[in-house]
């Protein structure tokens, strides 16, 4: 299958290893990965901060960049949720009805990674090896907008060597919320503190999730506290294999930066 990879603006710019891991994983599963060069951002940050008019050209660029793609996969529940729930609506409100229909059609072919693996490809054991104690945080948009349910957990349970520990109060928001983290930094930090307390209570080495943005938030807090517990995207864990393990596995992700 030919899969178009949407890296998302945040992953591409700040944590490219997550997009690399997604490509590595999909290729290992025997699929052709293409990375449309015109891609930038889904427009969610603009929409959710109140700049829905300014989001219109960003969404239009996204629809152009992925025109003709059979299937689009992104390592982010939040961006995929925005593509599903916001893009067409934003265009329609701006009077771009034709483009809105295209966006709606593209959304139908756009998948969050765990949904694509389990629902479209029908795999739950991706042949990964990750010998670490891991806890999983179900990010809010994956949980409540996309309803990915236990797909990520099913994938993690099939990873060899992985010791999966349940995260207490897992369904509570980590406090990221896009520009909320900056506009309401104090409340955001209070939420983060409780999330970190729960993560640390599991004694996991790694906290994983399907969204690099939330992980950047949780990881930023854990790193500031010098907690030693790190955040690793689900794609990076699923991309890891016995062959990819390095001596520094316990401190760096399997996929090289």
């Amino acid at each position, binding site marked *: 299958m030919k899969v178009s990879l949407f*890296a998302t603006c945040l*992953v*591409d*710019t*700040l*944590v*490219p290893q997550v997009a*690399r891991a997604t*490509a590595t994983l999909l290729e290992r599963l025997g699929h052709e990965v293409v*990375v449309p*060069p*015109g*891609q*930038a*951002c889904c*427009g969610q940050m*603009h*929409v*959710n*901060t*109140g*700049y*829905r*008019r300014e*989001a219109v*050209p*960003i969404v239009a*660029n996204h629809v152009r960049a992925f025109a003709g793609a059979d299937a689009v996969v992104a390592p982010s529940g939040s961006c995929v949720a925005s593509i599903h729930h*916001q893009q067409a609506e934003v265009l329609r409100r701006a009077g771009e009805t034709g483009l809105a229909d295209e966006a709606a059609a593209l959304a139908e072919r756009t998948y969050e990674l765990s949904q694509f693996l389990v629902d479209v490809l029908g795999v739950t054991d991706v042949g990964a090896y990750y010998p670490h104690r891991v806890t999983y945080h179900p990010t*809010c948009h994956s*949980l*409540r*907008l996309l309803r990915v349910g236990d797909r990520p957990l099913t994938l993690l349970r099939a990873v060899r060597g992985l010791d999966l520990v349940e995260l207490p109060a897992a*369904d509570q*928001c980590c*406090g*990221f*919320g*896009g*520009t909320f*983290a*900056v*506009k*309401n*930094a*104090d*409340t*955001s*930090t*209070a*939420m*983060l503190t*409780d999330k970190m307390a729960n993560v640390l209570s599991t004694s996991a080495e790694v906290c994983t999730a399907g969204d690099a943005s939330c992980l*950047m938030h949780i*990881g*930023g*807090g854990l*790193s*500031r506290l010098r907690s030693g517990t790190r955040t690793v995207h689900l794609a990076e864990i699923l991309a890891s294999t016995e062959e990819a393990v390095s001596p520094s596995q316990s401190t760096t992700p399997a996929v090289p*930066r």
Partner: protein
Amino acid sequence: MTPVSKMSAVDLGMPALPHAPRGVGHLRGDRSFPDAARDALRDGQLRANLGHATTTIRAKRAAVVGEVPDWPQLRAAGKAIKAATMARLDEHLIMLEEQVTARGGTVHWARDANEANAIVTRLVQATGADEVVKVKSMATQEIGLNEALEAAGIPAYETDLAELIVQLGHDSPSHILVPAIHKNRAEIREIFLREMPGVDPSLTDDPRRLAMAARAHLREKFLRAKVAISGANFAVAATGTLAVVESEGNGRMCLTLPRTLITVMGIEKLVPTWQDLEVFLQLLPRSSTGERMNPYTSLWTGVTPGDGPQEFHLVLVDNGRTAVLADEVGREALHCIRCSACLNVCPVYERAGGHSYGSVYPGPIGAVLSPQLTGVEDNASLPFASSLCGACYDACPVAIDIPSILVHLRAEHVEAQQHLTPEAVAFRSLSKVMSNPRLWRLAQKAAGLGRLLARGRPTLPAALPPPASAWTRTRDLPTPPRETFTQAWAREHGQ
């Protein structure tokens, strides 16, 4: 056709629908949400009280909602009934007025808080009463009725236990259903000992002892009162019947003992028929107190000679609701049945507390309702007081899409700005960059230069200038990579 009438095809010349007026009532705070929350977050006792209370109610609600096999259908029915009712609200309201009048009640229409307060004050004065007892009511808190009556020399006694605690403590409610949720029993004991005349000085913080003290304090007021003031959970338009749902029986006392009953109700609270009411009487108690059925449901229709109040007045309050109804996205907020399930599941409410919202309607529903009633610019920080986690939408018994309304109101705020803000400049520039792949690659390269600040460390320095400092004060930022993924991929694949 004159040019003027041709113009009116574009602009109907209708005045903007009025919002809730300033200077009266409790819909506006004197500080922004982030500012108020900053102080509240430092209050460890508040965090403990709220955390304990919301966790308990969440578990109770989840259990009783989970046992209803047709909950999704009930929820869909609730949403559909509300949408249909709002679409013909004018007709239903007139029907309600006709029915209440036909059964011996009097209906009064109040455009806003000032009119409503004036009507109620005049009605109380006409009875010759010099005090009133009150059933817990959000509408009267919204319009500041107690203060208006106080100014006219009429003390208004709250009879709901939590409202009594708040009133005795010279405090304000911080939750729709549990107004004193921010207080624990030790704090309540202190308030009673300090403020309740003739209270037993050996009072302990045992919940039963506290309730009995309140009971003795209130009983005397119930028996003396000539006028009661209530809100309404529902009004059935078909028969002119009002409904109050409660737990303590104080409502039943107020609704039956005094000679005159004055009910103050927002115009959105009616349902067309009894069949519709049936849906909400299932949705409300399970969503609010986490009970299968609430202990007291009082229903009354007009007046009945020789039984209950002999004089009944219904004051219908707009106070900005018609303006909300005119907003195609925001009007869904009027479907709210004030269960407060959204408050109890909200991670922002649980930490910042109700007072941070500055309005009698706190939490997620308050963040969409208050700014719409007052006009967004009078409560501009509230639509941003959410991480958009969506827990409120899932919990709402009438499926109000609160996150979508929050996002809509954020845009309404941004679009209402007369002057270009630094934020708007940044977002507009970013929009140009993110819609042009060539500019975007350049911008990504520029962002990559941020790695120089890190001097080889995996994270950027903690001391960055604003607005980055708002993040880095409490969280590290990863050092940007030398090369983005898309650049590396293009290089490897010869694009």
